[in-house]
């Protein structure tokens, strides 16, 4: 299953043949992180993003089982479309969470991937301390204060383009530092 294309998985689910449950699980494993990121980006909240994952993939699997997805090779586009619609609904309406979820709950739907639990926060703290001051202030304003490059630029008296360059460089430094095997004091 792990080597199957997205389209292969979608067709296996739609066929309702032996092995379709495995295909559903693999489809979920593959797309849940993508829908979660979409939810975080647009809904700004971890819990709501996790709800979005469950609702989107539940609906997707239902539509596949019912033969209502015409082009299974474009299942990724289908899931994105469902994500867009449901995210809009979530912004507008009260989320009728339990009513929608309970009748169809499958065991794998409860295992929504969370943020990266393997991130070593102590190491990240030491890596952050190694950044140049300007880089550190920019990443903190970006990720903690949730400021755009334009807003950060105004605050620090630099151009928006300059902020993007500093931010990109800082993230690259942090990723290198986090993944390196160097022993840090």
């Amino acid at each position, binding site marked *: 299953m792990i080597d199957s294309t997205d389209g292969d998985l979608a067709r296996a689910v739609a066929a309702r043949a032996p092995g379709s449950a495995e295909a559903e699980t693999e489809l979920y494993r*593959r797309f849940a992180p993508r829908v979660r*990121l979409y939810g975080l980006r647009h809904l700004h909240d971890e819990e709501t993003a996790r709800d979005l994952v469950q609702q989107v993939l539940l609906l997707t699997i239902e539509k596949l089982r019912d033969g209502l997805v015409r082009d299974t090779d474009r299942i990724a586009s289908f899931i994105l479309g469902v994500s867009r619609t449901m995210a809009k609904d979530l912004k507008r309406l009260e989320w009728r969470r339990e009513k929608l979820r309970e009748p169809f709950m499958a065991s794998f739907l409860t295992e929504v991937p969370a943020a*990266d639990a393997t991130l070593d*926060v102590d190491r990240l703290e030491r890596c952050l*301390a190694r950044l140049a001051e300007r880089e550190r202030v920019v990443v903190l*304003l970006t990720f903690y204060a949730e400021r755009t490059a334009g807003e950060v630029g105004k605050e*620090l008296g630099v151009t928006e383009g300059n902020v993007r360059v500093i931010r990109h460089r800082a*993230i690259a430094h942090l*990723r290198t530092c986090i993944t390196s095997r160097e022993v840090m004091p």
Partner: protein
Amino acid sequence: MPGCNAPIADDILLDYWVRDVTDSDETDPIEEHLFACGDCSARLHQITSLGAGLAALVRLGRVKGILSRSLLNRLQRDGVHVRLYSLSPGETVPCAVFPGDDLVVTALRADFSAADAVTLSVMGPGGSSIGMVDDVPVSRVDGEVLWALPAAIVRQMPSMRLQITLVSAGDTRAELGTYALDHTASPA
């Protein structure tokens, strides 16, 4: 799963994630690609995890170095217990860290009208160098530099006088102010 034939560059992923790209003409193709590509969505996940980790560190007061005023305001709004000392040039202020403090911030006021950046240096007893921070961005509007230390670090410091100096960065190296903190150690 096939690999990615046209990976999205990291800087574009970053701009997308922090909402510097909001026009649907730009975001739609990025999202189409992310949904179809496990490699790129995994790289975006790494970036977002890093961002979430950074935000978590700040909320815990585990950040040291220079802050901006808006960052400080946000920290206080989020319930981080900040002990704030404000000093003008030439001023000496007694300081200590108290139970419940998460972060100690020293606000150093000065005239930054002729400076884009400064160097902050900290000297301990006998003129020993404790630390130096280069290329500190300054806000001419705010007229202050905010220097932060986690309270957990300050609690380990013995009683002593800290001498802080701000010098304009670049060729001029003009002294903008000296400040002193009379630190009293926390009870053992």
